[in-house]
C-alpha cells in the first residue's frame, strides 16, 4: 500500500482546483470502492481528495423533480421520508446494496462513478431516465444517465470532473417499477440484476424501460425488449419473447460468481418475472 496525501476541500471549486494542481490525485467519496482498490494494490493515487465536506454535493431537494446530491449515502436514500414513495424502485435497489455499515458511508455518486456493471443504483436510475450533472473547472453539463456509462470502469467523466447531482423527473402516476437482484447469498455483489418500469394502459404497454446489471461491460438498457413491449398487449408469448431477447442481447462473462450461461438465464427469467410482477400490481 503506497503513501498518499489526503485533502478535504470545503468547496467544489477548491476540490476542482486541487485536482487540477496534483497529478495522480483521485476523488474519494465514501471510499468503499477506492480503499478496497488501494489496499489490493490495484491503484496507487498520489493523493485523495475527499468530497465529504462540500456542501453543494449533499442533500436531496424536491420541487416537482428531484435532485439527489452525489454525496448522498445509500442509507440516506433509504431513510428519506419521500423517496421511497416517489421512486420505490430506487429504494428497493438501495436496500439490496451491500449491508448497513457500508450503506452508511457508500454514496450514490460513488456507486455510479465507480462504474461497475453491478452497481445497484444504476439500473433503477436507467429505467427512471435519470440525468446526471457534472462539473469541471470549465463549467457544468447535464447528460442522460445512459450516456454516462462508457465501458468497464469507464464513465464519460473526465478525470477532473465531479458528478454533482442526480436529477429525476417527477414520477409518472401510471408508472410501476421493480428491481430484482440475484446474489450467491443475500449480501453480495449482483450475479445479475434487472430493473423494469412499465406504464400500462389497460392491457397495453404504453412505455417500457428495462435495464440489467452485471451482464455487460456497463449497466445496460434493454432497448430491444422495450421496443418489443411498447404498444403491445403483454401476452404470455410476448413474455417468452422478452425473456429470450433479454438473454440474447446481454453479453455477460464467466467469473468466480457465475457462468456466462447462468447470467443470461437469470436475466431472462428476471425480466419475465419482473414484468409479471408489475402486471399483478
Amino acid at each position, binding site marked *: 500500500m503506497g503513501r498518499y496525501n489526503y485533502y478535504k476541500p470545503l468547496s467544489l471549486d477548491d476540490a476542482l482546483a486541487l485536482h487540477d494542481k496534483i497529478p495522480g490525485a483521485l476523488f474519494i467519496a465514501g471510499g468503499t470502492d477506492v480503499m478496497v482498490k488501494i489496499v489490493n494494490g490495484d491503484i496507487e493515487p498520489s493523493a485523495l481528495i475527499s468530497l465529504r465536506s462540500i456542501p453543494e454535493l449533499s442533500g436531496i431537494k424536491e420541487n416537482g423533480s428531484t435532485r439527489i446530491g452525489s454525496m448522498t449515502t445509500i442509507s440516506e436514500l433509504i431513510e428519506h421520508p419521500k423517496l421511497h414513495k416517489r421512486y420505490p424502485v430506487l429504494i428497493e435497489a438501495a436496500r439490496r446494496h451491500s449491508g448497513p455499515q457500508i450503506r452508511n458511508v457508500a454514496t450514490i455518486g460513488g456507486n455510479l462513478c465507480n462504474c461497475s456493471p453491478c452497481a445497484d443504483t444504476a439500473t433503477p436510475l436507467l429505467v427512471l431516465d435519470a440525468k446526471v450533472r457534472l462539473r469541471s473547472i470549465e463549467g457544468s453539463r447535464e447528460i442522460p444517465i445512459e450516456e454516462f456509462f462508457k465501458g468497464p470502469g469507464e464513465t464519460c467523466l473526465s478525470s477532473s470532473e465531479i458528478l454533482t447531482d442526480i436529477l429525476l423527473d417527477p414520477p409518472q402516476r401510471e408508472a410501476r417499477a421493480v428491481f430484482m437482484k*440475484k446474489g*450467491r447469498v443475500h*449480501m*453480495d*455483489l449482483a450475479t445479475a440484476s434487472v430493473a423494469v418500469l412499465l406504464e400500462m394502459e389497460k392491457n397495453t404497454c404504453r412505455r417500457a424501460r428495462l435495464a440489467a446489471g452485471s451482464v455487460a461491460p456497463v449497466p445496460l438498457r434493454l432497448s430491444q425488449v422495450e421496443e418489443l413491449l411498447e404498444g403491445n398487449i403483454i401476452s404470455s408469448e410476448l413474455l417468452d419473447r422478452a425473456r429470450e431477447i433479454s438473454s440474447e442481447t446481454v453479453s455477460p462473462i464467466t467469473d*468466480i460468481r457465475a*457462468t456466462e450461461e447462468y447470467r443470461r438465464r437469470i436475466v431472462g*427469467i428476471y425480466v419475465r418475472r419482473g414484468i409479471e410482477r408489475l402486471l399483478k400490481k
Partner: protein
Amino acid sequence: MTDFHYIGKETKRPAGPDKAAGKAHYIHDLVRPGMLFGKIKFSEHPHAHIKNIDISRAERLPGVKAVITAYNTPELRIGFLRDNFALKKDKVRQYRDEVAAVAATDPETAEEAIRLITVEYEPLPGIFSPHDALKDGAPLVHETDARGRARSDNVLPLRFHHESGDLEVGRSAASHSAEGEFSTPLVQQCCMGTAGCIAEFSMSNNLTIWAKTQIPFLAQRDFNRALSDMGLGGRNTRVIVPTLGGGFGSGLDTHTYEYIAILLAFQTGRPVKIVYTRDEEFAFLSPRQSTHTRIIQGCDSEGRLTFRHVEVLQDNGAYTSWGATYPSVMMLPATSLYRVPNVYFDSKLVYTNNTYCQAMRGYGNPELTWALESNMDELAGEAGIDPADFRMINCNEPGETTPMGLKVSTCGLKECLESVAEKLDWKKKHGKGKRRGVGMASLMHVGGSGRIYRSDASGLIIKLDDFGNANVYYGGIEMGQGLHTFLTQAVAEALGIRPENVIINPTDTGTCPWDVGTHASRGAFMAGNTAILAAEKLRRRIFEFAEELFPKEVAKNIKKLQKKDPDFKAPDFDVAAAAKRDRFELKDGFIFIKDAPAEGYMRVELGRLLRAIHFRNQGQMLTADVFYDPPNELPDFEKGYGNISATYAYGAQGAEVEVDTETGEVEIIRMAAAHDVGKVLNPQTLKGQIYGALAQGVGYALYEEIQSHEGRILNPDFRDYKIPGTLDMNFPIDLEFIETDDEYGPFGSKGVGEPGLVPTAPAIANAIYDAVGVRVHDLPITPEKILAALNKK
C-alpha cells in the same frame, strides 16, 4: 443429578463485557516493547525449483532489520510428517510456500521490503487433483520422505483401514443396494480473528510466543524442537494464548508463520509480530481438506443394512498437518453410524501442488457423513422405504459395541430422529414433490474426548485465595465457544461457590498444567471432569480443616450476636460434636453443617475459613491440582479398531426446502435439529454452538468453496468466498436437546462442539431430492449444479 445450582442455567460469559467493549486483547491488539513487524514472501509458482533469491535490495531498505531465507537460517523441519519447512530451499510445492521473510519497524516497510525481494524460479509441471496425483508417471511432489528415503509415488504413508464381518456375505444378503460418489470442496475456517503471533527471546534465549493456538502444549513441544534445531537445545518455550477470535481447527497445528517469527525474533533480538491479513488468511492458511468418497451400501428386504463399503480419497495438498488424520474420525460414522454388520473402509491421502490442508470443525466427519447420509436416502429409495423409517430400522442403541469396537454408553439417536420427524411434520410432507421437500440426516461423533494421541489428558489447578475466590489454571482454550463460561459454572457447582468467585486465568504453558488441546469436542467434557476432581480434592481438605476451625468461627458469630443482644440464646446444638468432615456442606461460598439449624450464624463464609486456615502457626493455603486421562483407547488405525472416546454424541437434523426450478435456487423454509448432548450445561452457549455450527453446515451445503486454478486460490476474500449471513439464516430452527445423562460426562454431558455441522449438508441435499428429484453429489449445491442435474433428468 437434578439438584444443580449453576449447571443447566445461563451464566454470563466472563469475557463478554470486555469483548463487547473492545477491551479483550486479541493477537492484533498486543504490542511488545521494541516490537518489529514480520512479513512473508510467498511463492509465485505452484511447483518450481528455486534458482536464486535476491534479498539485497530489501536489506538496504531503511527500517528493515532482518531478511531471512532458507539459505541464511537454520533448517526447521515441521509438520505432522515433518515434510514441511519454515522456509523453502531448492523447491516450492505450492503457491503459499514461504521463500523469504523480513522484519521491519512498521508493517508498511515490511511490505515494501517483501516487494523488493526477487526470486528466480524454474517452473515444474504440477499436479492439481488427487486423481492426477495417482496416475503413473505423475510428477512427484516430494522426491524423498522426511528421513531422506526416495519416494516412488504421491501417496502419504498413513494407513487408516477397517474391515469387519464379511463383505461378500453382506452383499449376498442384500436385496437392495445403492452406490454413490460424493465429493466435498476445500473450505475455510473463516475465523473472524485472523492468524498471528508474537515471538520474543530473553537474553538467556528462552522463547515466549503469544500464539493463536488450540494446542499450547503440543506447540510448546514443536517450538522446543525448533529451538534445538536452531542450536538452542535445552532452551524452553513459553506459549501464551491471547483472546482468540475463533479457532475451528485452524489452531491444531503449529504454522510456518510462527517458526518464521521465531527465526526473525532470534535474528533481530527483538519481539517480532506476524499477523495475517484477511487475504493472507484465505490464501496462506490451510483450509479443510477436499474429499472424494465412493460408497456402496446394501440392505435386506426388511430394510436392515447388510454391508457398507467406503473408500475415501483426500487431497492433502503439498505438506502434511494433523488434518491428515481425518480418516481416524471418518472411521466412526463409516463403521458405527447405524448398525451394519459387514464394513469395509479405506482411505488414501495424496500429495498435490494445491494448498496444504488442516483440521476444521468435525474433522472428517462432515465429509464422510455427507456421503453416508446421502447414500442412506439413495438406498431407502431403492428399497422403497421411507428414509425416516429406514433410519429408525437401523438405529443405534445404548449398550452396543460397534464393529470398530466403540462402546456406546448412552445413545439418544432414536429420540433425535423422532424429534426431527415430528418437527418437520414428516409424514405429511415427505414424498410430495412439487418443488417443496423435506430431508433428514443423522450423526455420531466422539462425545467423551477422542484419543488420537498417546495422551488424551488435561490437567487443572485450582488455587484458593484468602477471599474465597477460586483461581483456575487450565490449558484448554476459550476460542469463543464458551469454554470459560462452562468452566466457571463447573468450578462453582462442584466446589460450592458463586460463579463470580471463579477466576479463569489466561492460558499459559508457564502456569497451566498440560493439556493435549481443544479439539474433538472435548473442551467441556475435559474441563468439567477435571473441575469436578479438583473441587472434590479441595472440599475434602476444607472439610478436614473445618473440623477444628469451623466451631471456633461459629462461636465467634454467636459471641458477636450476644454482644449486640444480651438475650440472644444459641440453640441447643453441639457444633463441636457435629463438626465432622462428612457432615459439612459448602454451597454458594458458605460452609455449614448439613443437619444444623438453618441460621445465618451457623454458616461461615469460605474466605473467612480460608483465612483461619492460613493465618496461624504453620498455616496453609489450599491448592488442588489434578490430571485426568479419560477412559478411552488409542485405536489401532490400520485395523480400525478401538474405543476412541469415552462416550459418543448423536444427533439428527432435518430441513424443509423449496427449490426454484427456473433459477436453481434453494430456499430453506426451516430446519429442525435434535442433539443427544447428555445434559444441557448452559442453554445459551449450547444453542450458540448448535446454531453456529448449523450455519456453517448451511454454508458447506450451499455456498462455501475455495476455488482454485492450478493451485492458485481465486477467491481469497469475503467478497468472493461466501458464507451465510444473518439474512441467509433467516428461517426458523427448531432445536431440541435430548438428555441421556451419560455416566462418563461431567454432570452427565457429552461433547457438542462439532456435531452441529456434521449432518446439515446431507439433510439439505435429501430435502432437495425430495423436492425436485435430483441429487447433487458434490458440495456446495449451487443453483447451477441443480439446473444441470434437472436438465439431465
